[in-house]
């Protein structure tokens, strides 16, 4: 088990180095950064001076080692547009994105599983048909459209919820949270639904399909033949057997939720990392883009690692396979 975890961790480090190379090469392919910093009338001598002071005339390998070493300490350089360290910008923006992503994911898991189980157990009811229709909408409508429709309905027509922003935030250490104020919570509702709807319908469909599959198995029939209660069979025996694929999808989707928060954050002008990234792209702010790439990959890699370990918690058969070295 420990060997397995270590092996997976090593692989994760490998992935991060590869991503580091890609994000580093962005600087080199996106033109000369010195040109981005200086004015038109700066002399060649001054340019060379700046280049030397930034270490840009060192060999590529040395530059990469320095870049990667800095990245390990969360030093990502200075943003071209804000003239601030990128690390500070990300630190300031990250709580907003994480709060949004976690809320959306919790929403997706809770309602996705409930709806999936319900529609699997009560296959032919009216409610199931409605849930199926909702899931079809959720899976096929693009995120920005759902966001805009929600804004139109709840902010413009009904005026119940704010159409943009994060509401009031409370500072806890360096973490600015919107979860502790009424306006912050209200502002969180629509973006969370927008961001989580796709995952929710995905989880619902997955749980439903898996549940129908599991309910047909012999061990469920045997559980019924033993006279166990219906709820013990459905929730104790059947649901647990659907969890492995649900954990996989939810885990991988959480990475996507953070990465694709870009769209939701743009629609709702949510002051998170995604919005920062969009602005960075518009202004060719390479340090932010490179750092964002690293951050998102780190989150993906970490989640993958956690998901792999979670499997073994749910399914004892995998524990046996894993402890045997591959």
């Amino acid at each position: 088990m420990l060997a397995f975890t270590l092996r997976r961790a090593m692989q994760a480090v490998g992935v991060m180095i590869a991503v580091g190379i890609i994000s580093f090469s962005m600087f080199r392919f996106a033109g000369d950064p010195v040109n981005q910093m200086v004015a038109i009338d700066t002399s060649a001598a001054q340019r060379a001076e700046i280049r030397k002071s930034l270490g840009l005339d060192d060999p590529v390998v040395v530059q990469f080692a320095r870049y990667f070493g800095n990245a390990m300490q969360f030093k990502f350089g200075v943003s071209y547009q804000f003239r601030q360290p990128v690390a500070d910008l990300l630190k300031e923006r990250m709580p907003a994105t994480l709060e949004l992503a976690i809320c959306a994911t919790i929403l997706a898991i809770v309602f996705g599983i409930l709806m999936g189980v319900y529609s699997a157990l009560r296959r032919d009811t009216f409610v199931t048909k409605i849930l199926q229709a909702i899931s079809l909408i959720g899976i096929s409508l693009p995120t920005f459209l759902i966001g805009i429709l929600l804004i139109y309905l709840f902010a413009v027509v009904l005026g119940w919820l704010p159409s943009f922003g994060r509401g009031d935030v409370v500072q806890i250490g360096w973490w600015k949270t919107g979860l502790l104020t009424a306006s912050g919570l209200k502002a969180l509702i629509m973006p969370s639904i927008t961001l989580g709807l796709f995952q929710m319908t995905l989880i619902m469909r997955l749980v439903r399909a898996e549940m129908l599959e599991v309910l047909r198995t012999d061990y469920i029939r045997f559980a019924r033949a033993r006279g166990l209660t219906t709820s013990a069979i459905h929730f104790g025996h059947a649901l647990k057997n659907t969890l492995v694929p649900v954990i996989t999808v939810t885990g991988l989707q959480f990475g996507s939720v953070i990465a694709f928060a870009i769209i939701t954050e743009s629609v709702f002008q949510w002051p998170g990392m995604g919005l920062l990234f969009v602005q960075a792209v518009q202004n060719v702010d390479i340090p932010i883009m490179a750092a964002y790439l690293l951050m998102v990959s780190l989150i993906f890699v970490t989640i993958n690692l956690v998901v792999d370990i979670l499997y073994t918690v749910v399914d004892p058969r995998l524990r046996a396979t894993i402890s045997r070295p591959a």
Partner: protein
Amino acid sequence: MTEPVLSVRNLQVEFVTRRNTLRAIDGISFEIAKGEVLGVVGESGAGKSVTGLAIIGLIDRPGRIAGGSIYLSGMRIDDLPPQEMRRIRGKRIGMIFQDPLTSLNPLYRIGDQLVETIRTHTNLSEQGARKRAIDLLAEVGIPAPDKRIDAYPHEFSGGMRQRVVIALAICAEPELIIADEPTTALDVSVQAQIISLIKRLGRDHGTAVMLVTHDMGVIAETSDRVAVMYSGRIAEIGPVRDVVQNPLHPYAKGLMGAIPTLVGDAARLVQIPGSMPRLSAIPPGCAFNPRCAFAFDRCRIERPEPIRRGTQAVACHLYDAAGKESAA
């Protein structure tokens, strides 16, 4: 005469499909006494398993019990509400399925599955149920049960898993065990052990056993009586010795003739020509008539009802006085 543990009277099971209604079980009656083992044989699709599922109340939609009645120790159970039937399942009727590899939930320790089942049917505490689970595992012949109780199903071999399944089926001391092809998925050497285990448990606890199989060898070894099923009906029923040595129904004759023997010429096994009709195309009269060498006009028109012949009962016009005359 004491009351039989199980009494099935004129049971009918139907499967309603969009096009038509298929009758999987068409009016069968039999009884099993305390401590008795009734073997049920027949080809695939003869209705053996469906009979077992009907008794334990696990016929799923679109199937339904269309007629007849089932009595467990004198109490009618086929029309009980689902909640009451659930309490009978596992407590008064235990069921063992064919494939031990898939009968156990792979995600739970076998001890947890035993304790859950025991606690569903008794008032035992967690510790009490666990102690009972260990005793049960010992009784079905699992070595070192106090250690193995914390193992997961995948850590057992097929034969051992079937023992666990049996332990689960008997954990509330049921009056009746329905074993649906309990040895089909197992090695021949393990089959004998499982069969003798079921036989021993039935004897020790006075449990009635309904043993569904298509293996005549298993029936001959374990059962007291045997019912030969064909197309949802009982063709012949009687004590194993009599039915094996002196089968009456032409189908039973064919079945017994198809048992390979160690002595004599075994170059070719006897076989019954043709195959069992599909449920949607059961011929009028006796369902066996298209394959029967002795069929005559009446067999194609009128369905034969069971006729007593000594210890046996046979559903065939050949044994009807009137039938015999017209056959001659």
